[in-house]
């Protein structure tokens, strides 16, 4: 297991696997199988994958700890960047195909429609994380500060789920499913940090047993 995780080929495979949704979408474009409302279909498709990659990214750390496989962290950046990649596609489809880059219509939508305001905020929040995702930036900022900055991703994921919840008409099953997954992923972190904060004295009697 650690061997597979350490292999550079695993990274290549994962890179290509992450492109499968995009390839599937392109295939559907060529087959003209984009439903009767292609712009809506592509928008929802790229939005879905943004949230999914955000969830995968947030699952990396818990998985690493629970499986005790530090190598898993090697894939976290790629998953995060893919979340940003699908998020940017999502934004491009909305702005170019849906709003035809009409600045007035877009501005009005961002200010007036809560789900668009929230979605925009989530995507803007991801931008500095994508920019500072390189090893060089970790060095320049120092790991502690870099880590602090990258906690913004928790907020982005939450905003992403809220964005989805706000836009559905009445069937809230899917947004609620993502909310539940996110609650588990963030809840895990809360529990871990609370345990860390407990003073060592409390543990002493247990050790003495």
């Amino acid at each position: 297991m650690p061997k597979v995780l350490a292999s550079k080929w695993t990274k290549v495979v994962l890179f290509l696997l992450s492109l499968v949704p995009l390839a599937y979408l392109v295939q559907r474009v060529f087959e003209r199988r984009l439903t009767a409302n292609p712009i809506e279909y592509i928008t929802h498709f790229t939005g879905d994958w943004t949230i999914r990659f955000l969830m995968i990214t947030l699952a990396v750390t818990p998985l690493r700890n629970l499986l005790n496989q530090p190598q898993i962290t090697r894939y976290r950046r790629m998953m995060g960047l893919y979340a940003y990649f699908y998020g940017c596609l999502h934004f491009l489809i909305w702005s170019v195909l849906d709003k035809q880059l009409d600045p007035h219509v877009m501005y009005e939508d961002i200010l007036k429609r809560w789900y668009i305001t929230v979605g925009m905020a989530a995507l803007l929040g991801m931008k500095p994380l994508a920019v500072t995702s390189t090893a060089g930036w970790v060095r320049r900022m120092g790991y502690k500060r870099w880590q602090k900055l990258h906690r913004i991703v928790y907020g982005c994921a939450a905003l992403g789920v809220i964005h989805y919840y706000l836009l559905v008409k009445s069937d809230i099953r899917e947004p609620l499913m993502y909310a539940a997954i996110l609650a588990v992923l963030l809840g895990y972190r809360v529990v871990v940090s609370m345990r860390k904060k407990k003073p060592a004295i409390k543990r002493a009697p247990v050790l003495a047993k």
Partner: protein
Amino acid sequence: MLIRCPSDLPYSDVTPKHVYLNRRRFLSRSAAAVGAAAAPFAAFAAAKLNATKTPYSVGGEKITSKDVVTGYNNYYEFGTGKEEPAQNAPKWKVPSPWTVQIGGEVAKPKTIDLDAITKLAPLEERIYRHRCVEAWSIVVPWIGFSLSTLLKQVEPTGKAKFVAFETYYDPKYMITPREAGIPFPYKEGLRLDEAMHPLTLLCMGMYGETLPNQDGAPLRLVIPWKYGFKSIKSISKINFVEKQPPTDWAAYAPGEYGFYSNVNPKRDHPRWSQARERRLGEGFLGQGITKETLMFNGYGDQVAAMYSGMDLIRNY
């Protein structure tokens, strides 16, 4: 009442049958590649309907292709995804004979079956613009006749001020209200004058045939100046009442969907703009084209008088 008749649309503008049939063959073939998804297409049992043209049709609009209208539906009982009704609804066998219970504030309540309804008046083909509250629109050649023809049969009393409608609900083939997020059986309603308006269509067919299940077989309403969800599908009950009846979407989110739900570009849905709409199936790649939404969906000349003096922003 004076009804102005828009110029007639030449039949040559209708997508020729061999074109849309070819598209359907293409669609079902690609669906076959995905798997069993193609099976429901076999369940289509559409029968020909003869209908005469009427002056109620809109002119100058390109008819939306049939595969758009039958493949992209809001019929939450058969799934909340746009493509789910086309997959799930064909599995449902429309009960035969189909009966409609009509009662409430009427002199002659009755239960009438579909055959008898169809014989009440000659069938007309009416090409209407159809605007969904979700800001997409289509142009459909519906078949039927004015709802008033049926409603007059039961002789509404003076107490009848509103008409309430109910969709058939069959839990064996339809999802639960919990899954859909809205109550079932689906309920809709109209003011009596709206229900009696000649444009309000009692519809049993489209594109020259009986209605496919996902479009509301065997009997539905089409109210062209209101958002699509007012045009209730698969009607099983009609009830004349004195007070404004509860309706599904208005009950679910009263701040978002009103009882009237007249198409109104000036009254935005709280979560999206209603100023524009996407006309489906049009454009270079069939991606749809953006159009300005018209007040009363362009039927203002015929219906605006019913709402004179009413604040249509507050009474949305």
